[in-house]
C-alpha cells in the first residue's frame, strides 16, 4: 500500500515535470523541471530498494550533468534565446518516430503478457531480506560477471574524453 502511494506520487511528479521541461519558455525553468524529473526517477529507484542506483542517479545526473547544464545556460544570453523559435520544423517526423516507439513498448508489454512470471510488471518492491546489499551486488556484476563489457565501455569513455580535451586544446 505504502509502496504504491510512494510510486504513484513520484511517477506523477516525474511525468508532470517532464512535460513542463519541454513546454516552459524559460530555459532555466526547464532545467529546474528536468532536475525535478530526475529526482523523482531517483525516488522510484529508492522505492524499488535500488539505493545504489538512487544515489548514482543523484550524484551523476543531478549533481554532475545538470550543474554543467545550468552553468552553460548562465553563459547564454537568455533574452535572445527566448525570442528564437523553440521547436524544429520536423514535427510530423518526430510524431511518427515517437508513435513507433510507443507502439514498440506497448507490443513488448502485450507479447510478454502470456509468459509465466512476466506479464505487466508489478511495482511492488521485493522485501528487504531477499535482496543482497545493493552496492555490493552492482560491484559484483560490473567487476566480475560483466568485466569485459565494462572495461570496453571505460576505454570508449576514456577515448571520448581524450578526444574532447584534444579538440578543446586546438582552438587556443
Amino acid at each position: 500500500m505504502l509502496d504504491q502511494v510512494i510510486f504513484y506520487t513520484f511517477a506523477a511528479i516525474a511525468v508532470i515535470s517532464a512535460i513542463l521541461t519541454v513546454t516552459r519558455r524559460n530555459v532555466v525553468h526547464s532545467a529546474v523541471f528536468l532536475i525535478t524529473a530526475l529526482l523523482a526517477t531517483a525516488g522510484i529507484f529508492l522505492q524499488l530498494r535500488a539505493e545504489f542506483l538512487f544515489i548514482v542517479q543523484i550524484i551523476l545526473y543531478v549533481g554532475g550533468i545538470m550543474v554543467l547544464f545550468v552553468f552553460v545556460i548562465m553563459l547564454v544570453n537568455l533574452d535572445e534565446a527566448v525570442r528564437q523559435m523553440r521547436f524544429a520544423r520536423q514535427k510530423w517526423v518526430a510524431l511518427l518516430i515517437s508513435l513507433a516507439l510507443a507502439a514498440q513498448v506497448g507490443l513488448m508489454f502485450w507479447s510478454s503478457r502470456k509468459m509465466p512470471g512476466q506479464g505487466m510488471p508489478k511495482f511492488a518492491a521485493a522485501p528487504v531480506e531477499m535482496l543482497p546489499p545493493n552496492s555490493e551486488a552492482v560491484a559484483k556484476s560490473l567487476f566480475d560477471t560483466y568485466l569485459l563489457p565494462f572495461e570496453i565501455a571505460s576505454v570508449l569513455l576514456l577515448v571520448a574524453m581524450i578526444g574532447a580535451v584534444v579538440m578543446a586544446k586546438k582552438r587556443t
Partner: protein
Amino acid sequence: MQAVIQATIEFVKQYWAPLVCSVAIVAILPLVAGYIVLVERKIMADMQARLGPMRVGPHGLLQPIADAVKLLIKEDIIPEEADKLVFWLAPVLSVAAALLAMAGLAIGPAFQIAKDINIGILFVVGISAMGIFGIVLGGWASNSHYSLIGALRSSAQLVSYETAAGMALVCGLLFAGSLNITSIVQAQYDQGIWFGLLAPVAFFTYLVASIAETNRAPFDLPEAESELVAGYMTEFSGFRWSLYFLAEYTNMIVVASVATTLFLGGWLRPFPRTTWLNFLDFLAPLAMIGVGVYCLVRTPKQPSRVQQIFMLAVAGLCFVVALVLVVPLVVPLFNRSLAAAVKPFHDGILGAFWFILKVSLYIYFFMWLRFTLPRYRFDQLMRLGWHFLIPLSIINVLVIGIAMIAGQYFNLTGWALLLTTVPASILALIVALFILASEQKSEPQKTSAAPDSYA
C-alpha cells in the same frame, strides 16, 4: 480511505524514532548554526586581540538570538527584475539539501536518522552536493551581475573540487571496505587506527577540498566581498539570506562529520582498543564540570542582575550535562548487574561526545584557517584544484591500493600497515609536486593576466 489511515498509522508506528530525530535536527540546527557564528566571531576577535560581541548577554552569549530576531523581522525584498519563482526556490533548495544530508550521518552509535543504509557516506556526499543548485539558481534569479558572477564562480569551484574530495573519500573507503557508516567506524575499531593516519595525503586532500566546497576562506571567492559585494547572496535579505547562512553552516557540519567518520575514527575515542586509557571517558563529564565551575566563579563579576542569572543558568546546564554523562560511567562501577542495561546509553552518550568534539575541532580548524590565510585569486584556486589536488588524489588512490595489497602480502594490519601506506603517501605527494613543477616550467607565468570577467 480506511486503508490509507491504516497505512499511515503503521508508518508512524514503525518510524516514530527517526521522525522525532529529524524534527529535532531541523529545530535545533538553526540554533547550533547561530552559536557557531558566535564562536567564530569570538575566535576571530581573540586572534585579532579584540573582545568580540559583548553587549547581549554575558560575553555576548545571547547575540545569536538577537541576530535571528533581527533577520526574521527584516523587510523581505525581491528585486523588481528578479525571476520570482526561482528566487523563492533557490534558498529553500540550498537549505533542504544541507538538512537532508544530515539524515545519513551518525552522531554516535545511537543517533542516526536513516539507520544503517547501505550507501551511507555516498548518500551524505551526493545529497549535500545538490546544495550547489541553490547557489547557482539564486545567483541567476537575482538578475544582478555581482550575483551571476558569484554563482558562476561557485559552480566552477564546486565542480572542480568535488573530484578531489571524491577521490580522497575513495581512498578512505578502500580501508573500510564498506559505504555503511557503522561499518566504517567498526573497521577503524578493528584496525585500532584512524584512517586519517593510514592515508594522511587523502585526509589532507579532503580537508582542502571540503573548505573549497563549503565556500569558506581562503576559498570564499563566490562571495568575495571586496570585489563582488556578497556574490550570489547580494540581492537576498532577511529570512532568505538567513536560509543561505543556515545552509552554509550546516554544510560545514556535514563535511566535518564526513571527515570525522571516515578519517578521524567517528565516535570512537582516541586509541579505542587500549584499555589503560579508559580513564579518557571521564574527561567528558570533567570538562563539563570545569566549564560549570568557571561560570559560577565568573557570576559575581557580571555587571547586571539579568546577566548574573543567565550565567548561573549556563552553569546549571553544564552540571546537568555532566550528570547525564557521568551516570552511565559510574553506575557499572558500583553495580555490576546494571552494566549490561546501561551499556547502550553509555556507548550512545560517550560516542556522541567524542563525535561532537572531533567535529568541533575540525570546524575550529576551518575558522583558524579563515583568520590566518588571505583569499586566493580565482586562477590560483583553479590551478591548485586541477594541477595539484586532482592529480594528487588520483595518484594517491593508486599507490594506496598497491600499498594495501603489499600489506596483505606481508600480513600487516593496524599500526603495522603504516609501514606500507606512509611511503606510498609520500610517493604520491612527490609525484604530484613534480607534476605541478613541470607544468609551471612548461607554462611560464603570464606577467599580466587578462581580466576574465567570468573567471
